[in-house]
């Protein structure tokens, strides 16, 4: 269905941040550095110019692994840097990872002769890929949205939050950390817009001739694992399948018609609140 982008505007009033690309210089681990580890005293290099400089450095040095949009790369194992970072929770933490690399991974330290200022500009750029959730003003009410989630919209039938709910969709316990309110609204209105391969549907006829349909939990060159709607787990060797087909669509219904604008606002507010830190109401 077509998305009415006009309806996004009253819901979201947050700063649009340029999303671009970055990469890290390749250097071997175990090297000695002149620069010391950073302590968490804040980043002095965080002006718009610094972010732009960090962006340019990222595109040039880091994007090969992390992608031109900094959204990571499954092939290189480089993580998405646009959401909450798994290994750093502060500016100093990001600085230290860039300076020292991550041992045992392909993330090598930045060159020893790269000035600290450049690394801080990279930190500023990476930070700019996210946004402070406190800067977001949402029209909806999260508490009301939570009731909707478990009630009329029946989201919990398929989705878990904090261990409660169904298994037929992604766990949403921390969905607010990695999705913008805009992403969340788009997912509610047009679930087929972006479907992770984990949630594609596969229909396969096994050696017993029975056709089974389920979520594509994992597929490789020779085998396939699915979970059907009764949460049964199945593993197949492809050569033993009589046939199988793959549907790269979501099983989630669109809520564009079944919920009002206000209800959608509330649901988005609830989903956006699903994060580690508590947002003030």
């Amino acid at each position, binding site marked *: 269905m077509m998305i009415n982008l006009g309806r996004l505007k009253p819901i979201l009033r947050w700063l649009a941040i340029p999303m671009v*690309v970055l*990469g890290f*210089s*390749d*250097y*071997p681990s175990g*090297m*000695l550095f002149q620069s010391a580890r950073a302590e968490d005293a804040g980043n002095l290099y965080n002006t718009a110019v610094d972010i732009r400089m960090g962006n*340019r450095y990222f*595109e*040039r*040095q880091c*994007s*090969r692994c992390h*992608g*031109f*949009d900094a*959204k990571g*790369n*499954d*092939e290189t194992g480089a993580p998405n840097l646009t959401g909450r970072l798994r290994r750093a929770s502060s500016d100093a933490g990001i600085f230290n990872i860039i300076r020292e690399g991550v041992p*045992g*991974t*392909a993330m*090598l330290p930045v*060159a*020893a*002769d790269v000035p600290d200022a450049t690394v801080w500009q990279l930190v500023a750029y990476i930070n700019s890929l996210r946004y402070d959730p406190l800067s977001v003003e949402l029209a909806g009410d999260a508490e009301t949205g939570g009731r909707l989630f478990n009630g009329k919209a029946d989201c919990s039938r398929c989705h878990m939050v904090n261990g409660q709910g169904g298994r037929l969709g992604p766990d949403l316990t921390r969905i607010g950390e990695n999705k913008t309110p805009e992403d969340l609204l788009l997912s509610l209105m047009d679930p087929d817009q972006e479907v*992770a*391969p984990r949630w594609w549907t596969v229909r396969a006829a096994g050696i017993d001739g029975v056709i089974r349909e389920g979520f594509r939990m994992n*597929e*490789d*060159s*020779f085998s396939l694992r699915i979970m059907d709607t009764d949460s049964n787990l199945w593993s197949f060797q492809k*050569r033993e399948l009589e046939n199988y087909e793959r549907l*790269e669509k979501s099983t989630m219904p669109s809520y564009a018609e079944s919920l009002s604008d206000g209800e959608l606002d509330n649901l988005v507010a609830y989903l956006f609140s699903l994060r580690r830190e508590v947002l003030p109401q």
Partner: protein
Amino acid sequence: MKHATALFLSVFMTAIAGAQEDQFSTVITPAFSPITWERLVDAHNEPNNWLMYSGTLDSQRYSLLDSISTHNVDQLEMKWAYQIPVIDRAETVPLVVDGIMFITEAPSNVVAVDARTGREYWRYDHEMPDDLRICCGRNNRGVAILGETLFMSTLDAHLVAIDARTGNLLWNAEVAPHDSGYSKTAAPLIVKDKVVTGIAGGEFGIRGFIDAYDPVTGEREWRTYVIPGPGEFGNDTWSGDSWKTGGAATWITGSYDADLNQIYWGTGNPGPDWNGDVRLGDNLYSDSVVALDGDSGEIVWHFQFTPHDVHDYDSIQVPILADIEFKGRQRQVMMWANRNGFYYTLDRSNGEFLIGKPYAAQTWAQGLDPVTGRPIRVPGMAPTYEGIMVSPPIVGATNWYSPGYSQDTGFFYVTSFDGEQEFFKRDEDYEEGERFTGGGGRYTSPIDAFHSSIRAINPETAEIEWEFPIMPRSSAGITTTAGGLVFTGSADGYFFALDASSGEELWNISLGRRVHAAPMTFAVDGEQFVTIASGNVVYTFGLRN
């Protein structure tokens, strides 16, 4: 008295020796023997050993070993595993010389192990500076051997010679300054009495070349730049001074034809990769194959697959040489599936284009000129500031991983990828030792949404004879055998065997980590083995006893 004792001992020892001969009737010989140039030329007929990166000088990766065959390949089992201590992806293709296997490791180390057991004889750890400039991980793909010496490229852009019996360093030659962006990852190629080797660094504005070194002294014998200098043919295919930083790295191993005395080597992308505005022209000899005189290193002919490339379509593929019947005539050909999505058969004696067709998804060219083989471009497919979708993506329809050829089927085998990517252009100034790429790319679909396969191509028709789908994109090489088999691996961590004639799956094993390397096969005491690196482990398989 002394004499009496000596006589007694002598008689006693003779008696003992006689008893041993009776008891141990099997004669055992020491492992390893020196590798002469003649043995390298005749490597096809010494299939118990794997004497160079691509197996033989023609790089067919075809082994005459046939005790593992289509009939029993499903009886393969793991014989041993060797864990590489430094965690990075293993792209090594080991050599085997009379029962000893030489395995290279990240970043630039080599270990010698018993090929039957994987247990170590010695290891060489290369001393490395702390200011390397490497684009794509700490990789090393293998060594070359001549006499009793191994030759290895190192990430700090050196070439080292190592005693094959002890691991002692014999010499260590700087090929190019690493802090300017040069590095080395590929196995050298022995050509007669020289060590021929390329250079990496195409993302750092280097000027690519191919070198030859004296195997005894480490002195450089010749250097051939693959970007011509002022006054040389082709220099005018670079606007202004762009030739000085034009890349064209030679970062994979070439091939050699002893009869024609020609060395064949692929060249990488022009730099900066994605912004061609600063290097107008065809940019010779980037994205080409060059044929060099086997003695002088002079360029005899060249064929440029992608003139003025703006998509990073390196011609860094291993040239496969064979003599085949082509349209009723016996031809000395070179087979080449390029990163740009087209397959080519060339006459390797003179570089004549014989046939070429797409073998994978591509949107950047309408086709190839039927006479010259030059691509006919689709207008408006160059990277933009806003991004433009083009196929193949940056990683290519194939890449550096070795293709294979079977003398039995006459097919050429290649790991292929039908992907697409959004390409971006950026303005960048060259700074020595810094990346100089002028843009980049991004996928807009998950990798699982794309199609990958092993494809068998008929070099006479350039048609695909069969394909075996794999997922997701693989970066494994291919080896074929007289047992009717194609061995290769996949990104999802499988090592598997296909029927070379039909592409039918015959055997697979999940090794759990991505295969970034090509398989090789060898025999010890008449027993055939197959070896592949997966993740950080080198696995060796043989038939169940």
